[in-house]
């Protein structure tokens, strides 16, 4: 039941975190494996969805802590010169460009955005899952949307964006 209802949204959320299909599959499978083991503890079926997404996110954070720091990318100052994104513009983009636009957003904005778009989580559910105040969530969601649209716009106009990793940026400083 839980697999049928949530596995697609959960996989996409995992992909938005890990950035590749293999890790996303593993995260999804591990999450459902935990659900199978702990199903007795989840007496309220309405909480299964939140439990799955929260568990997967925590598992991902655990992975990250064990790995060496991953490079993060930022959109540089060109963002102010980009045109606004329209629905037509979105339609014309390749799938890879859309998923890449999401993946290049800084994680603190990307995670609430992915939860918002996949499985239609409400603002209250997302705030609870990430354990952040609702005001903070609103800001991150808004900023996440803005960053994603700028990334989409940059790909849409085909312009060469300047993407630098945080590590590189720090080295320059």
């Amino acid at each position: 039941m839980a697999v049928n209802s949530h596995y697609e949204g959960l996989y996409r959320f995992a992909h938005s975190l890990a950035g590749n299909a293999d890790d996303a599959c593993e995260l999804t499978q591990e999450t459902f494996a935990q659900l199978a083991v702990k199903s007795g503890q989840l007496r309220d079926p309405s909480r299964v969805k939140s439990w799955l997404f929260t568990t997967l996110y925590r598992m991902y954070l655990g992975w990250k802590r064990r790995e060496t720091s991953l490079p993060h990318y930022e959109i540089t100052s060109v963002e102010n010169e980009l045109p606004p994104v329209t629905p037509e513009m979105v339609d014309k983009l390749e799938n890879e460009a859309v998923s890449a636009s999401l993946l290049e957003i800084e994680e603190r904005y990307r995670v609430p955005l992915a939860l918002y778009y996949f499985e239609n989580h409400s603002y209250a559910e997302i705030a609870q899952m990430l354990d952040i105040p609702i005001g903070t969530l609103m800001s991150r969601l808004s900023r996440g949307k803005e960053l994603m649209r700028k990334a989409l716009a940059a790909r849409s106009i085909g312009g060469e964006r300047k993407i630098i990793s945080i590590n590189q940026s720090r080295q320059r400083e």
Partner: protein
Amino acid sequence: MNNQEAKLILQAYRSNGQDASDPFFADVLEQARRDPELQKWFAEEILLNTRLQVRLEAAIPVPSGLKANLLALRKTIRPVPWWFRPMNLAAAAVILLSLGIVLLLLPQKGAQIESFRETMARNSLQTEGHVVFESHDLAKIQQWLQDRGMESRFDLPTMLQSGTPQGCRVVDWDGHKATMVCFHLQDGQHMDLFVMDRTGLPDFPDNSAPQFASADGLMTTMWAKGGKLYLLTGQNQDDLEKVLQQTSTALKKLKV
């Protein structure tokens, strides 16, 4: 609320209409209905969100075999029963251990009374230093006890009153002090009467009905009266009952 603030909130509104009845959005939705500019922005936002959602779902295709793998996974993993989880097992062990310790440490009603009987019986059987203050005068014995802050005003069974006191001493039991008065009855029997303040001993009898029990080869009978606990030792139950019956008969006669 200005439009900038309204937009911040409206950006969390889900484009499928699930939040339409959420009071959190009621004010900003009303503001959007009244303000054409905000309304236009909101309509575009909803449209863009819908497109983005569709495109994102298409952009991240779910591997075809994933669902089958997940369903197979469910069959291979058995849920661990709640009582078998390590945390629950550990918690149960701690509770049982604590309960055992508490039960061991709790003073047991029967054991406490038995301990009192046995201690008094041993004192009764003690030949050397059986009494500390020797006197055949009950008044002097009572005075000696009173001088030491001990129980000196107690009700003696009638048969003991007709006997001859041999002396007294103070005995200790579990942090309490009891008075012991030794008697030789007219028929030559030896009996010791122990008197102790009953305060702080809730498990001991609180009525005057005597309770018989043997201890260390002696027969004992215990009763309570006027906030004091009495224990009398003798050779057998018949003798002790005789002493108590005479007391009871004498009391009845007095009442008549």
